[in-house]
């Protein structure tokens, strides 16, 4: 029953913001479903596949999905994510996180202010 509630919350968040919803699923699996970090991340990714597919389908009916743009950023990103995950072992991620956090803050302010 907890998984059903977590799934529903993640689905709402995912469709509202166009994101996978891992930011909701992973902490809830850790806190409310007794998961450890690695299985939470792995199981979340598999669940997001279904969530994102459902969101894409429903938005496609509304005419909001641009397949060309999705391929343009989505395909190089899949390759980049594999590179990024393996880089994680070799670079000082902790120090870089503050720079990345500042970048996200800047983009957030840009979206709010324009």
């Amino acid at each position, binding site marked *: 029953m907890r998984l059903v509630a977590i799934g529903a919350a993640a689905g709402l968040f995912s469709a509202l913001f166009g994101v996978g919803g891992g930011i909701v699923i992973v902490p809830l699996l850790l806190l409310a479903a007794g998961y450890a970090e690695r299985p939470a991340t792995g199981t979340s990714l598999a669940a997001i596949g279904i969530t994102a597919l459902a969101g894409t389908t429903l938005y496609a009916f509304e005419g*909001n999905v641009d397949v060309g743009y999705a391929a343009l950023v989505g395909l190089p990103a899949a390759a980049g*994510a594999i590179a990024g995950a393996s880089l994680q072992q070799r670079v000082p991620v902790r120090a870089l996180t503050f720079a990345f956090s500042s970048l996200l803050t800047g983009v957030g302010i840009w979206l709010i202010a324009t």
Partner: protein
Amino acid sequence: MSPTTVAVGLALGLAAGILAGLFGVGGGILFVPTLVGLGLGQLDAEATSLLAILPTVAAGALRQHRYGNVRWRDAALLGVSSIVGVQAGVLIATNLPEDVLRRLFGVLLLGVAAQLAWRAYSSKA
């Protein structure tokens, strides 16, 4: 799509993927502002982002499966349960003014930025 848009889109997509893999965040949080930067409206950017994350998510899920980190029954239950939430989310997003939706997304980014900084700050290097 102009050649410039294609070149910028490919570069930003690659960069978004590397950052997502490096910092363990989802691609969507980076795809949406990227697509807005490329000229899409907020709603189209969000809808397109959901399709764009599928290849990354599929590759990530397969890799995690090989490490034995995916509990497939739970994942299926989570995914199927999410569909009702997705319907509500689409309904809300398509009825909100786009500038409100964009500002809400901006607030989400600030929240993720704060969470990342906190995680890095509290983890002892």
